[in-house]
């Protein structure tokens, strides 16, 4: 109800609205890679529906006016857009801190030089520690060699870099080498993120689910490396969430600090929010960003704590982790209000954990790669 002055959650409870800090701008869903854990929705947006560069420039101006400080240019592969440099420059001109999240594929030395002085920081994805692993996981022959070349060019130009290693059962044993590689490439940070089993990754639970032993070992590796590399390289680690006692605070709380703009201009509280049935999402082509953020029913739906059922409603952690991930609750419990089943206090937790253990014990190496359905002709 747009005319109602007080924003309300999905159950009609009044909510307080803050200001967003960060925006994920998915410039395109096109990507040369086919990673089986891609965070894009299973139904991908076609190139013809993508926002134009001038539309992105307007989105960035609105975002900065709304309070956004950092924009993450992502995809798909943002370099798949020929007008990436123009788009990035418009984000910087709007006053935003510009982070480029890329696989490196499609970037040349000349294209990187165009981004010099525009992009503040580059986040380079890593699928594996060598060509054999990385090219298999990404489904793209030669990707590893090209990525390493992009890393060298970026370093020579002087871009600060974070290596973003996505880990799972097939590559987690090689974590020490990933950390060494980040150091060799001169990275200031490495993010080690265990696959989130949503969307495409949900189709690949059996080949990708890490074992408990791997997760335990990874924690030890990270702790040791943090001590050894203190003051030289920062290590951010996102463990497998079903192995933790409590869920992660997804997005720092729904609609609290971040928003996501999909390639066609649809504005989402998180990249997977469209999996929650019954929520309607607005588009920046039609509605101003500030209005979507402040008044949009989808953004207000799970703000605050009023919508929570038990055990979340009376939990002392309700404003620490906000009951975990709404999309995961939807996927696993069939109800977006439910306690995220990765929480040890969820009635579904034991079943989830048993399923994950069974998946981790699988010897499957058959990957379902991300792919775009063909556009209809005529």
């Amino acid at each position: 109800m747009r005319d109602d002055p007080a924003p309300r959650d999905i159950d009609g409870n009044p909510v307080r609205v803050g200001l967003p800090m960060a925006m994920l701008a998915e410039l395109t869903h096109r990507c040369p890679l086919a990673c089986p854990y891609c965070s894009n929705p299973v139904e991908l947006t076609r190139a013809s529906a993508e926002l134009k560069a001038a539309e992105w420039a307007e989105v960035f101006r609105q975002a900065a006016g709304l309070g956004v400080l950092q924009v993450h240019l992502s995809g798909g592969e943002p370099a798949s857009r020929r007008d990436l440099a123009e788009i990035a420059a418009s984000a910087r001109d709007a006053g935003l801190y510009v982070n480029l999240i890329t696989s490196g594929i499609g970037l040349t030395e000349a294209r990187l030089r165009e981004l010099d002085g525009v992009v503040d920081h580059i986040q380079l994805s890593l699928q594996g520690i060598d060509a054999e692993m990385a090219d298999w996981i990404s489904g793209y022959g030669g990707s590893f060699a090209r990525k390493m070349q992009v890393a060298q060019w970026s370093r020579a130009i002087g871009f600060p870099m974070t290596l973003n290693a996505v880990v799972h059962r097939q590559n987690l044993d090689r974590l020490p080498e990933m950390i060494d590689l980040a150091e060799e490439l001169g990275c200031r940070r490495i993010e080690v993120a265990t696959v989130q089993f949503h969307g495409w990754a949900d189709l690949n639970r059996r080949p990708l689910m890490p074992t408990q032993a791997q997760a335990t070992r990874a924690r030890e590796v990270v702790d040791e490396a943090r001590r050894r590399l203190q003051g030289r390289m920062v290590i951010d680690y996102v463990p497998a969430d079903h192995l933790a006692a409590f869920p992660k605070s997804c997005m720092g709380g729904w609609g609290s600090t971040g928003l996501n703009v999909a390639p066609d201009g649809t504005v989402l509280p998180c990249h997977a929010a469209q999996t929650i049935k019954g929520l309607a999402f607005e588009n920046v082509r039609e509605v101003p960003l500030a209005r979507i953020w402040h008044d949009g029913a989808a953004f207000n739906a799970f703000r605050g704590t009023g919508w929570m059922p038990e055990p979340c409603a009376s939990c002392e952690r309700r404003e620490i982790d906000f009951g975990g991930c709404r999309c995961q609750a939807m996927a696993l419990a069939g109800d977006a209000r439910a306690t995220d089943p990765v929480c040890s206090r969820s009635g579904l937790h034991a079943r989830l954990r048993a399923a994950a253990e069974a998946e981790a014990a699988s010897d499957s190496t058959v990957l379902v790669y991300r792919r775009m359905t063909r556009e209809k002709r005529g």
Partner: protein
Amino acid sequence: MSADRISGAAVPYLPRGVRLHDDRVRGIRVLLAPERVIQLDPVGHAILSELDGKRSLAEVIETLCTRYDAPPEQIEGDVQEFLRDLMDRRMVFLDGEAGGPA
């Protein structure tokens, strides 16, 4: 956090990819860094504003003492603690490190 003191002769600076920003929407000063936004109090902002990649830590502390009419021991303690933390987070570099001043 490392216990090492930063040498007074060292030249601290904000490396490329780390910058001060005046957040007019919220009316605060922030430090922008990869995947991080840090809200600065007036002391933190005053310290970082002095890092020009040319003057040594000792010179920076001297400038702050004069400007805020505060005893060097107190300023030195604040600055050491604040910069050490940011160095551990790779948001402040010392001269001679790769990365170059922004």
